[in-house]
């Protein structure tokens, strides 16, 4: 068995994008897609490129319900950003492939998936969403 998404309904089937939701009446797009069916809500595939609107860095290991690595010796601070997807919404997401001290508001990023614990055996890995800097920018 290979790595699995951390939850159902989070990604498209090919894991190439996030699943969001559109309110049919107001047109508002938001994330994530609610698990409870609702006639007013339809799924929408979220864009895969956006810009960093703001960010912070989680510098200490979180307590439960967090299930990622928390060993203080091995814990790596991670970036939490709001990524603005044009004409859709801003998604709260980790950034990957960049040193936390190099993140800049306004930088272009693209969608990817990463394991919550890269040191876990592959069959136990849970995949979460992230954005990474657009190459060549």
């Amino acid at each position, binding site marked *: 068995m290979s790595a699995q998404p*951390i*939850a159902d309904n*989070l990604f498209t089937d090919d894991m190439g994008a996030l699943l*969001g939701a559109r309110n049919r009446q107001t047109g*508002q797009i*938001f*994330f*994530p897609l609610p*698990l409870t069916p609702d006639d007013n809500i339809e799924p929408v595939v979220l864009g895969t490129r956006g810009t960093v*609107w*703001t*960010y*912070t*860095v*989680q*510098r*200490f290991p*979180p*307590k*439960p*319900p*967090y*299930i*990622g690595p928390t060993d203080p010796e091995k814990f790596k601070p*991670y970036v*939490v*950003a*709001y990524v*603005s*997807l*044009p*004409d*859709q*919404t*801003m*998604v*709260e997401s*980790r950034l990957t492939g960049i040193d*936390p001290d190099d993140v800049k*508001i306004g930088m272009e990023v693209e969608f990817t998936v990463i394991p*919550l614990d890269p040191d876990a055996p592959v069959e136990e890995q*849970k995949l*979460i969403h992230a954005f990474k800097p657009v190459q060549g920018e």
Partner: protein
Amino acid sequence: MSDVCIVGAGIHPFGRTEGRDGMDQGIFAVRQALADSGIEWKDVQFAFGGSAASGSADNMVSQLGLTGIQFINVSNGCATGGSALNAAVSAIKSGEYEMGMAVGFDKHPRGAFNADPSAYGLPNWYGEAGYMLTVQFFGAKIMRYLHEHNISRETLGRVAEKAFRNGVKTDHAWRRSEVDLETIMNAPMICDPLTKYMFCSPAEGAVAVILASEKKARELGVPIIRLKSSVMRTRPPGSFEVFAASIDNERGGTATEIASKAAFEQAGMGPEDIDIAQLQDTESGAEIMHMAENGFCKPGEQEQWLLEGRSDITGSLPINTDGGCLACGEPIGASGLRQVYENVVQLRGTAGARQVQGDPKTAYTQVYGAPGVSAVTILQR
């Protein structure tokens, strides 16, 4: 229409008190408030009160006395105290009652507040993947604000430095020693750009306030503090609140902006008429944003304000004269009423070493919390 008046106020010191639970701290504050106004518990006709983690406030009657009074519990997150006060004011304004009480108390365990995703309508993965932390929200929100309004990170440090400086002079404060700017800036980063000293901690404490109609207040013959406004509001579209897996691209206003505007209208005053302000400072960034959201300066001017000490006790508009949440800690149920207590003391001129000079006559409070609630009061002597 005649004003509702504050005729008594009491506080249990904030911080950590081993061996005394939250409700007992509430009882302590109530007894002090009763003594302050020169009345007895049997004279109190009604009460509104609340705590987030220390039980139902109406249970206080078993210790205070079974007088049969109307005692309504309030649960409004960080605005619990402000909402209790607001409800008490309305009860007197309606003419149904002449004298009552608003009380808030709490005792939280050490460390950041733990949160359960389902309580916020969020899926479990949100917590499992490491997003269920309030500190991330505070960091991300002020990171954007500093960027948009060209404010330096040192300004965050100066807010904390001022809070600890004021806390030294405050009997009810928790943190009672100064911390210099360099130490604050070089302290471990919690969530960028906020270091350890820029966050308040969950704590313990209690505050009670006795309110009366103007007629009743005159009969008591105590110093009268008038409540010119008491307003509580919830968030408008496009605000940026804690635990949001997504936020709209189109940004909107804030609950505080709405509450502040309504409070000034109710009082027939503007920001320029205020002599002292107590503003929500869950972390340094909150005080900076709230200076502008309440109309005391324009976004971006905070840098100069802090640099010049305009919000110091000796400045043109002293802000958080008792050290705010940063020096007092944040017992959720009591926090908003602490601001009111501090203003009562300041307006009476009995604040001792931290007394604002120049005979202050008007004082402002603003409390803000999850998920986008804000309560404002304006007091006048």
